[in-house]
């Protein structure tokens, strides 16, 4: 449920380092807590994002939730497949359900994020799983 090669944020986003960029999505815990995802508002390519700042929105049937960037940088790619198939966030949150890719302003920010074990401990302390 929490792949070992990813880093995780307290806002339940994951990031995968791919050279100088990071691919970002939401974790299994987040998609499960949301329920059926029916809409994703993606950022514009070229937009600057800031670590822990909002960059978009994910909506379930009943609720609207902000998406927080785990890192600072420039959005270089967004997953437009989510426009027609937002449910990919539920069915494949680490794969086809990815949300955006960011050119990292500061790769050291990845170190500040949790690894899989730390994220699971964080979830346990929050009462989730």
């Amino acid at each position: 449920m929490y792949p070992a090669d990813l880093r995780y944020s307290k806002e339940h986003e994951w990031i995968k380092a791919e050279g100088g960029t990071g691919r970002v999505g939401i974790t299994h815990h987040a998609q499960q807590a949301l329920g059926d995802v029916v809409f994703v508002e993606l950022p514009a390519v070229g937009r600057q994002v800031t670590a822990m700042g909002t960059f978009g929105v994910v909506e379930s049937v009943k609720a609207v939730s902000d998406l927080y960037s785990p890192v600072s940088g420039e959005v270089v790619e967004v997953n437009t497949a989510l426009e027609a198939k937002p449910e990919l966030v539920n069915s494949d949150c680490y794969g086809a359900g990815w949300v955006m890719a960011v050119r990292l302003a500061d790769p050291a920010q990845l170190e500040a994020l949790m690894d899989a074990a730390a994220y699971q401990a964080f979830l346990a302390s929050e009462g989730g799983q």
Partner: protein
Amino acid sequence: MPAPDPPLLTTPLHAQHRSLGAKLVPFGGWEMPVQYRSILEEHRAVRTAAGLFDVSHMGVVEFAGPEAQALLQELTCNDLTRLQVGQIHYSALTTEAGTFVDDLTVARLEAQRYLVTVNAANLAKDLAWIDARARGRGGVRDRSPEFALLALQGPRAAEILQPLTATPLSAIRYYWVAPGTVLGHAALLSRTGYTGEDGFEIYLAPQHAEAVWEGLLSAGPPLGLVPCGLGARDTLRLEARMALYGNDIDEAHTVLEADLGWIVKLEKGEFVGRAALARQKAEGVRRKLVGFEVLGRGIARQHYPILAAGRPVGEVTSGAPSPTLGKPIGLGYVAAEHAAVDSQIEILIRETPVPARVVPTPFYKRPR
């Protein structure tokens, strides 16, 4: 230190919801299942087969005796003299201004005995309202603790229920109620619901609720029955254009503004709010609850502003993605000049005006 919140109430089926892995949330002072597996799945099940809802949190108030009808006639806007024994109608408790204290159904169980089903969140308010005006008349009794309420809804509801009851269900017409049994337990079978589908709201003694719930959930799944929570209940009722108290109707909006004029029977005689409603009917409403569909990308939600040509003309009261229609829909009050079907409006979604259009409602009508 602030006082802790009072503990949430639970229905007789709470343990069942837990064991089914339901996501439980606070609702009107109760801890209720919002979904079991998926709101979309549960919604589709009700539209294609059947769903089972625990709505035992709802309030049930009895009016009985020789003054029951007169009291109800005074307090509600619909006309009870037309209600036959065994028949049910949708109505409202209205204020002097013709606005909603609550919306409700009235079931005439016997010539002088009526069962009124009200929203859970409004029960205490409704009882106080009624008591203040009844002055001891009308045999009013809060019977909520005496009933659990299960709603079995969907095109296959009758097929699923029939083997479990001796009552021939084909004899119960839509918006009629009959006493019967389910799995041998005494029940009121009310052919009503909040989904826009055929179905039954089953009134039971609380101690029999588990047996009936379990009985339905073992007999039903081969025919497509699934347990359903409040999440699906909300998307279903919205598609059927059924108002939700606190969203679409409240003490700030009249029955006519809510476009529910069909439950207002001015000719029946005096009732609380009659003068205000008669005046408003003569003058015309200045704002109206309309249905709309969103044409651009985005989901309308409660409180989002409604614009016309960039200027504010109203507000969304309910909004959601419609699983049946495959597009976002909603209800909202708009200034009367923008209420006609096909009026072009915009919904302000996070600072972006998204095009929408006023459409006829209900958004969905079950095939007959």
